[in-house]
């Protein structure tokens, strides 16, 4: 007996297993970042005074990063679309771009962190920096995770295209869903930490 | 009506309400448990295989259980609206105004209770953590006008009877919990916050001791007598008082009494009312206790005056 609905969708739910799986996983991720946002709100409301992000943090860099991440989302979805259009070469190109964007994001973050550290600003400085480093750091880890997955599907994982193209397309879609979520989290982190 | 619960003696004005509520809930619990229990045991016996070989497919048809559940829900609603909400409101909203209450600060630390009285001027001196030291546990600023006459005691709380008391709780280090079972108060002490509780003691330590007094056999007994005081004078054959009322029963006293032929004595705890820290706060949590002695107003003022004497350098 083989495990059903790994590729085709189950008629009554209209989903294949990993599609449902990733959405459930994302639901838990929502709760994870939700809890951190909740913590942020509570601490900020309770605090006597709280600095205005844009005075302490580098908004232009963050803006750049936002653009990069949004861009990577587009290339990601394009890579999936190319697979839907059976164009493997295009897929490789778009996926490659996505990965590059991911690295780009991390590099920019690296500069941001570096600047702070060089001024002796660490998480222990005060609650503002504590939240800043913790939230962006955790988000950074998610980006790294995403890059690893994407690298796999760009490189070794993509062999599956030859054998089971449909299944491979599903996998890329699922990886995409995760990547877009990471982008989505940043879309909220950006104004909350940098602009308010 | 609900002595069966074995609640500790209550010495507070609001206690009876809480105890009454405690009783009501437990009666409800018993009713449910006995009711279901009886039904349950009956089924277990009546429908055992040997007596009821073939099961019937449908089983119970009536929906009486639904009504029972609705009943339970209603009773719970009554408990909330009728008891819980008003009682809680009384505890946390209806504080007496400071002027007709005794106000004390309690500063908890690992593992002690520091009690801070405002002194005659009724004003608390300012405090500052940088002043904290072994002999100034609350970091009281004596140079501050209001602080000069303040009285600070450690693990010893003295309060007047029949007068509302407001306790302002704060902590120096970790979370503790100000729990006084005999006063039916409990309030976590959260560092970084000042949380008030209020209550009114209606019994002096003496009368509590009288109520808790029990005859104990001197020969065999698990309890450590050293925390017990005698509740009456014990006179030897040569009419010398071996243990006057209120003597601490240290081993030597016990020996003397046994030699004098006493087999059992009427005893009561030396400090029947205690603050029991009710939140894990480290390795000394189990011994973080303080005595609370309730005195008459006169005695209380006398005590304050006496404490004030120690302030003169």
């Amino acid at each position, binding site marked *: 007996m083989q495990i059903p609905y790994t590729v085709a969708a189950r008629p009554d739910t209209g989903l294949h297993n990993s599609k449902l799986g990733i959405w459930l996983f994302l639901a838990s991720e929502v709760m994870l970042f939700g809890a951190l946002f909740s913590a942020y709100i509570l601490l900020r409301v309770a605090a006597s005074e709280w600095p205005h992000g844009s005075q302490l943090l580098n908004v232009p860099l963050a803006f750049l990063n936002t653009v990069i991440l949004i861009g990577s989302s587009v290339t990601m979805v394009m890579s999936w679309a190319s697979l839907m259009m*059976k164009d493997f070469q295009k897929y490789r190109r778009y996926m490659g771009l996505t990965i590059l964007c991911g690295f780009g994001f991390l590099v920019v973050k690296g500069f941001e962190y570096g600047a702070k550290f060089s001024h002796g600003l660490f998480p222990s400085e005060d609650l503002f920096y504590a939240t800043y480093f913790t939230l962006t750091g955790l988000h950074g880890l998610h980006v790294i995770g995403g890059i690893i997955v994407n690298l796999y599907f760009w490189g070794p994982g993509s062999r599956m295209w030859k054998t089971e193209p449909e299944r491979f397309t599903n996998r890329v879609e699922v990886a995409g869903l995760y990547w*877009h979520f990471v982008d989505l989290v940043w879309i909220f982190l950006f104004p909350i930490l940098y602009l308010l | 009506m609900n002595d069966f619960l074995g609640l500790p003696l209550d010495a507070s004005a609001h206690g009876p309400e809480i105890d009454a509520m405690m009783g009501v809930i437990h009666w409800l619990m018993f009713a449910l448990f006995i009711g279901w229990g009886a039904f349950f045991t009956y089924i277990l016996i009546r429908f055992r295989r040997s007596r009821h070989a073939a099961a019937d497919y449908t089983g119970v048809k009536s929906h009486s259980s639904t009504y029972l559940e609705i009943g339970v829900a209603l009773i719970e609603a009554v408990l909330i609206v009728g008891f819980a909400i008003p009682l809680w409101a009384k505890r946390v909203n209806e504080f007496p105004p400071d002027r007709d209450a005794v106000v004390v600060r309690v500063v908890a630390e690992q593992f002690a209770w520091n009690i801070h009285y405002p002194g005659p001027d009724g004003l608390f001196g300012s405090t500052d953590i940088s002043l904290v030291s072994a002999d100034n546990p609350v970091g009281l600023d004596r140079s501050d006008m209001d602080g000069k006459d303040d009285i600070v005691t450690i693990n010893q709380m003295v309060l007047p009877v029949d007068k509302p008391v407001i306790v302002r709780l704060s902590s120096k280090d970790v979370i503790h919990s100000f729990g006084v079972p005999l006063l039916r108060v409990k309030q976590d002490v959260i560092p970084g916050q000042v949380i008030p509780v209020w209550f009114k003691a209606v019994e002096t330590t003496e009368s509590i001791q009288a109520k808790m007094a029990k005859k104990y056999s001197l020969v065999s007994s698990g309890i450590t007598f050293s925390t017990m005081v005698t509740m009456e004078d014990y006179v030897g054959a040569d009419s010398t008082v071996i243990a006057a009322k209120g003597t601490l029963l240290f081993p030597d006293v016990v020996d003397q009494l046994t030699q004098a032929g006493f087999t059992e004595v009427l005893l009561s705890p030396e400090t029947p009312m205690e603050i029991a820290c009710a939140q894990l706060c480290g390795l000394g949590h189990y011994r973080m206790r303080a005595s609370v002695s309730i005195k008459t107003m006169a005695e209380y003022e006398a005590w304050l005056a006496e404490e004030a004497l120690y302030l003169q350098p």
Partner: protein
Amino acid sequence: MEHTSAEDIKKHVRTYILVFVALLVLTIVTVGVSYLHLSIVPAVILALLIASIKGALVASYFMHLISEKKLVYFTLILTVVFLITLLSLPLLGFHDTIQ
């Protein structure tokens, strides 16, 4: 999105580009607004509003939420409900304390 033909994929691609542009514009807008130094309340509302719009765009087009199965909707709605309790109740707790 299993059985979509190459044709409507092409349509998709067009929307993706549009969404991309929209996201860029909105990003510029938020940053711009932040330089107006509005007082905190409107600033927060505006920033979160824009962020939500952007989030909605990403979710509904890149993640295809507009055309998802109801099981996924169900999961997400459930999640959002609990998310709201997680965000609101502790806050209520912080404000409704003894005195």
